[in-house]
């Protein structure tokens, strides 16, 4: 078996001093593609933030057996200040690797890299557009480019499919499948239906974490995991919406 990329060992974390997540353990291996699902407020974003080192651990450990991987991160749309006066090009440039030092100006080949990436994503004509004037899909693409520009080993996406149409979802699906050949992906969604065909395995997060080593989940298993999420018909997943059970 390969060495894990990162290990969460019985962690407890949250904001201020209230724990949101307890007894969370998870091993993530290179080239995993894990869908993180759970109800609103279940702690999906919290889990991601603790992995990214943005939240302190109340207890437990995080290990990176072969060092911290280069990480690309796409935050949840609701956390982005869309009225901030910044252009598409600047946002994507902010993802360019710094190797410790951040020079005042991008080197010309880094600039070229940013330009190429924008063209590939179909953002070429929007380069100097402020982010406040983008559609939902264009915004998601911009932030996806920012996460990818540095060619990360670990890609963490927090609900990249909010406010986008079926067409973009399909495009995203194809992109991620291709990217997963080179990088490990964590994909958050509260809708198991849309992500289950993309991901390899699933983690259910509702105050704690249940790992499910396949991309198929039945209603019964979700119940056992205490993970009330919308189940929309996709292959073998039963077509019914589960009721919330409340935790504790």
């Amino acid at each position: 078996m390969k060495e894990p990329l990162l290990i969460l060992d019985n962690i407890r974390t949250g904001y201020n001093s209230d724990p949101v997540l307890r007894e969370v353990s998870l091993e993530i291996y290179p080239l995993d593609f894990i869908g993180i699902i759970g109800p609103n407020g279940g702690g999906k974003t919290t889990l991601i933030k603790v992995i990214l080192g943005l939240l302190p651990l109340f207890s437990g450990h995080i290990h990176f057996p072969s060092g911290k991987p280069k990480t690309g991160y796409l935050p949840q749309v609701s956390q982005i200040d869309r009225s901030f006066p910044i252009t598409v090009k600047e946002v994507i440039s902010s993802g360019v690797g710094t190797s410790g030092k951040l020079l005042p100006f991008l080197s010309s080949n880094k600039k070229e890299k940013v330009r190429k990436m924008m063209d590939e994503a179909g953002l070429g004509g929007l380069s100097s557009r402020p982010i406040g004037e983008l559609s939902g899909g264009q915004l998601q693409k911009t932030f996806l480019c920012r996460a990818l520009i540095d060619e990360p080993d670990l890609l963490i996406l927090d609900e990249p499919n909010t406010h986008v149409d079926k067409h973009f979802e399909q495009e995203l699906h194809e992109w991620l499948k291709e990217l997963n050949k080179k990088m490990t992906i964590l994909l958050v969604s509260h809708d198991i239906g849309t992500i289950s065909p993309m991901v390899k395995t699933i983690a259910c997060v509702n105050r704690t974490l249940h790992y499910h080593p396949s991309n198929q989940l039945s209603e019964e298993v979700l119940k056992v995991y205490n993970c009330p999420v919308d189940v929309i018909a996709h292959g073998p997943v039963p077509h019914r919406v589960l009721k919330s059970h409340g935790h504790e």
Partner: protein
Amino acid sequence: MSELLTILDYQFFRHALAAAVLTSLLAAMVGTYIVSRKIVFIGGGITHASFGGIGLAYYMGLNPFMGAAVFGIMTALGIEWVSGKGNIREDSAIAILWSLGMALGIIFVFMTPGYAPNLMSFLFGSILSVGKTDLYTLAGFFLLTLFVFVVFFRPILYTAFDPEFAKVKGIPVRTYRYLMSVIMALAIVLSIRTVGIILVLSIFTIPQITAMLFTRNFALIIPLAALWGVTGSVAGLFAAYYMNIPSGASIIFFLTIQLILVKLIVTLHRQVQRRSG
């Protein structure tokens, strides 16, 4: 026109002009940071808390602007610290420091025996009495800020826009936040000399709002805000002299009139374009 310019023969007016220009250039950079991050309220807190320092310095017979600088920096760092903690409401903390600073200032000024300091000059500025030392201080700090904004432009922008992503990218976010807090405090305190406590925030916001009628690009807002700041404050200064009105108030009045006029022209221009296009 030449008659209008005879005023330039007076040294005090040349100094005032230089102070207005330098303050506008300084405020163009710092104000763009403030407006983009939507932390005008923090600027208000720093401004008013610094009055406590002015009062204390008077009471102890020290340089009032030193007092203001110390109180301003402490307030700015305190607010940044509180906002990082997350368990105290930031806006409440600002409100407390805001009014506490004003209260302390008034108490100390009241307790100062003998000659009562000219409160009006702190509340509304005294640009016509700016001396050489003031100008050198202002110029020095302007150059320092310019240097920081050029060399650290990217981390300043990135930590202002999305501090969590910046942190993931390995940028020392806290360091930059504290650095910007100190720069913000000193810029505000130095500008109080020009336009006074009551009006100082406008010089950090009105030129930016005018600039944002043309661009929503952080890097372009700064030079445009500098342009609008300089034109508005120089016009305001001339008007203050010839109409014999307080200069700080006049500068703010001209900055605002300018904003309204530019907004009007931009709107009309767009309408004409739409009709012909």
